[in-house]
């Protein structure tokens, strides 16, 4: 992700759909709109908490210890949220199962936390909120498509008119992959030609470039 995020860049370089980071919540919890909402809220909370904590710690942490700290902080934050979700929202927790704990290995959290080490607190919060909103929208969109077309229901309420037109594969895990892939392709095609935006290939090059730049500076 860029050092100077703008709304346009965040959409164009969106980690979930363009960069394909943090797909775990999108793929695992979007069979049902209710579980998507729950997972979205949990992911947002984990994202904001871990980014803010890393933003505070950046002042004290040497650069080479950033990643271990990110792993510890993300895992700790997700574990705390997992326990609270299990205790206070048992029915929701039952819907999500192990996928809450699986957030602790989400690349989205790591990438956002890593970015927050290079930004001010205000920018960190701003980026987190925008990312969260985008993630929420993507998860809801995927969940609505999967549940309405795949299960002929919405938030657990049956839609009788669609009962005979179910596309069964959409309610299966493969359906989540299909929709994510279409969404990624559509957004990537939409933004790749806009000025100031980059697309997947350019982002990958930028990811590799810092390594090349470091090698050059050593030479």
């Amino acid at each position, binding site marked *: 992700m860029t050092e100077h995020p703008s709304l346009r860049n965040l959409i164009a370089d969106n980690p979930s759909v363009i960069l394909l980071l943090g797909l775990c919540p999108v793929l695992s919890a979007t069979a049902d709109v209710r579980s998507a909402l729950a997972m979205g809220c949990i992911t947002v909370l984990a994202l904001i908490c871990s980014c803010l904590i890393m933003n505070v710690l950046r002042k004290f942490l040497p650069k080479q210890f950033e990643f271990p700290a990110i792993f510890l902080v993300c895992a700790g934050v997700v574990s705390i949220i997992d326990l*609270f979700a299990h205790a206070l929202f*048992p029915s929701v927790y039952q819907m999500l199962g192990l996928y809450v704990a699986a957030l602790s290995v989400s690349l989205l959290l790591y990438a956002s936390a890593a970015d927050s080490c290079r930004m001010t607190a205000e920018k960190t919060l701003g980026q987190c909120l925008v990312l969260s909103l985008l993630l929420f929208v993507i998860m809801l969109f995927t969940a609505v498509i999967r549940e309405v077309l795949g299960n002929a229901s919405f938030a657990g309420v049956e839609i009788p008119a669609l009962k005979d037109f179910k596309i069964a594969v959409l309610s299966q895990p493969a359906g989540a992959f299909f929709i994510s892939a279409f969404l990624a392709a559509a957004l990537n095609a939409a933004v790749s030609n806009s000025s100031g935006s980059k697309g997947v290939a350019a982002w990958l090059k930028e990811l590799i470039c810092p390594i090349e730049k470091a090698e050059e500076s050593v030479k």
Partner: protein
Amino acid sequence: MEKNTGSAQKGILILILIVVVFSGILCGVNAYTAPIIEWNDSAAILAPLVQLLPDAPGFELLYDSAAPDHSALENVPCTVRYIHEISDNGGYAVQLSTTEGFTGDPIELSFAVDSDGKIINAQVDAYPDTKDMGVADYPLTYIGQDSALSDVSIVAGVTFSSSAFRRAVADGFSALTENGLVAEGYKDPVQALTELLPVVFSGIANNAGIVQGVEAQSSAALLNTALKAPTDTGMAYFAGEGDDLYLIVVNAFGTVKAYDTKGNDITASAPAEVLEQAREDAASQAADYLKKDTKAFKKLTGDDLEITALTPETFNSVTGAYVLNYDGKTCYGFTSRTYGFGDMPIVTRYVLDENGTVVRMNADELILEKEYFSDYTLDDAAYKEGFIGLTEAAFTGEEALITGATMTSNAVKTAVRDIFAAFNSLKENGGI
């Protein structure tokens, strides 16, 4: 260098601090949430019981199938998941899960008994089968019943699932009576013997354990009731009177056994003339399949076949056992008649070598209602080839599987197990 060392030490210290802080927070959060989580989990277990007995003051766990060693109860059947004592009541609530229904997916149910051992409520908690046995109403027919379950009937058309439900309730009662929690209900001799019949004579019952025997006219004066197996696997009779009623079973080969209401083998002590009457009556009602079987085995072995009848002492689906001499070899042929789709007979035949290995297999007809089965896959020749080389030790049941035809597959599975049992019986008794 010093700067680097200092920086590394600082980094390590901060990492340790992060670990300590988060560990402390997690301990605190765990201390707060653990009791809530435990209560939620208990509530999940108790939710069906609360629905079953909304006015119950509380429930105390006596048995959990996930931790049977923590319970003082013994000999608890595997279908029992939880047993709770109802607080201030002296009654018990039992939650069960059985996979003996039609689809094989778990049917979950619960029932509660009072201190006299009579059912005060029963319900189905999960029902995966497509045919409804009356999920709301059928359990209510159990109210007032004790462990004998005398007045409970099976739902016609949904026999597998309703009999699975009944057997599960019987298992629940077994756990309660075996551990002295409730008194055993009185089971009249006829009911006791009827329930014993499929246990001692599997050939007269289908794969769900439901007796298929139909009442037949009997010429024997000393016999009360005669039941004839529609598959001609033998006869069953009730003899004696009142509490001395006992069961006589005769297999297709004329072997006779007698059992009392407790399931004890009383053949040696039963009146000889009664047993003889049963044998003669069964012989008079038996079908003669020798010609048909000879013709069928010739198709498997060739026309140059010498066939001699044998008499295994098994009480299962085997209706024919023969020594087959052909091509200079001696093999053993078995005919089995089991209950397939709609409890219709499925006839299968097997040729075994002297070691008990299947060398040939054939069936009269496997898919009995072709218009019902639209999704089955069956290559007849390949299916039958799959049994060649099979031994009792190697048989897993998978060889009998026909995708989309569960009842036929189960019928063939039963047939294979029965013919191996008949072969072993002949080996033990000197017939082979």
